[in-house]
């Protein structure tokens, strides 16, 4: 299973109501890769990440993430994947530490509280929030919230990391922090997919660039290589 691709999609399409956000994505990625996913607003970047995270089932097509089938084996994928979306996914009435503690308890219910609190303190240190850990996150700035969310993702130690616009609302040190996390993940043998507009910053850590256009995926360096033929039955 460790030899399997981190990501292997064949003709994945996803529809919202009448609109097709993805029209047939065929792609592969292996461990140690870090993909930069470019594309305009509404091109399907977020939808692709959400399909990879298992939070959306594909309407058509099939795929595996870390060797497990999307849809059928989503339960096996969830422990291995971490996702950071547009929204930080925090509870405003809990403190930073409490938010992380909740997340860790959900991920690793069996861990002892001493181990857990040690790990949390370390993660807060790493994202430079140690001083604000006991404040409620409602009072955090947008950048602080994203840092805390990044700490949550770090603690998850995923094998596939999905970052949606990770550079948004970050200052220079925040951007560097994101790139450090990506680099560390990659070096540890994980796979990272970064959806971004910030080509320049992402290029510092990306090993490959892909571009989504109107729900279809193109290899960015090679230009317009359509994956449309992967839609089941189009040319059949």
């Amino acid at each position, binding site marked *: 299973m460790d030899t399997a691709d981190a990501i292997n999609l064949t003709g994945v399409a996803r529809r919202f109501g009448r609109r097709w956000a993805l029209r047939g994505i065929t792609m592969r990625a292996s461990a140690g890769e870090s993909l930069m996913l470019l594309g305009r607003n509404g091109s399907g970047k977020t939808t692709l990440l*959400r399909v990879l995270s298992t939070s959306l089932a594909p309407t058509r097509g099939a795929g595996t993430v870390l060797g497990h089938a999307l849809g059928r084996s989503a339960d096996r994928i969830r422990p291995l994947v971490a996702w950071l979306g547009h929204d*930080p996914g925090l509870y*405003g009435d809990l403190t930073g530490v409490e938010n992380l503690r909740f997340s860790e*308890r959900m*991920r690793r*219910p069996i861990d002892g509280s001493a181990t857990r609190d040690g790990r949390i303190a370390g993660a807060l240190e790493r994202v430079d929030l140690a001083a604000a850990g006991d404040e*409620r996150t409602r009072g955090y700035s947008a950048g602080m919230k994203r840092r805390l969310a990044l700490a949550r993702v770090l603690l998850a130690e995923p094998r596939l990391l999905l970052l949606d616009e990770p550079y948004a609302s970050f200052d220079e040190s925040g951007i560097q922090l994101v790139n450090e996390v990506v680099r560390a993940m990659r070096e540890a043998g994980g796979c990272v997919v970064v959806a971004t507009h910030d080509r320049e910053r992402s290029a510092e850590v990306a090993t490959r660039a892909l571009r989504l256009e109107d729900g279809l995926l193109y290899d960015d360096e090679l230009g317009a290589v359509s994956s449309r033929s992967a839609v089941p039955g189009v040319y059949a």
Partner: protein
Amino acid sequence: MTLAPDLRRVLTIAGKDLAIERRAKANFNAVVFLAATMLLLFGFALGPDAAALRAAAAGVLWLTVLFSGSLAFNRSYQTELEEGALETLLLYPGSRKSIFAGKLLANLVFILMVEAILVPMAAVLYGLSFGDGLGGVALALVLGTIGFVTMGTFYAAMASRLRAREVLLPLLLFPMLVPLLVAAVEVTAAFMGQSPFAPTGRWLTLMAAYDVVFLLATMGAYDFVIDD
């Protein structure tokens, strides 16, 4: 083997929801004050005749619980939707049923606490004396509240994510609660001495059966409503 971690997750979610409620006291207070206001309004609507008030007290108490309590359910998902926490919540390992069970547990504690304030208040306003029936009333409250909270937590998982959530939740929820309401009012009235010969055992059995049937059914169906 997977049960123990999921049980811990249930407690984690319940604890998280209750911690948020404790921090944002405003919500609990608002529900309690709304309930108190409803008790007063029912009193005005029914007139000042003490005997008539006492006779209607069980029904008034339960309607107050249902109407004020139903405000808590949508909120329980609202906190998840505010900053996109639901998506993160759904991606944690383990069974999604633990999300339902955790929220159910938190809502149960919430509503029982509202009732703990409401019942003495109703006793004062409506001149009730429970005497020996206090244990029975408490049993009726617990059994009735379990069913109520089960259904409320379940239907709010859908309604809270739709545009018309304020109307849709009561529209879906209240018709389902009819048997529970009938049984709960009958038992409560009986234990308050209003109808001493009422078959309370039968009603309590009905409530317990309702709780078990719908707890199992909603648990089984939760994956269908929470998933996308």
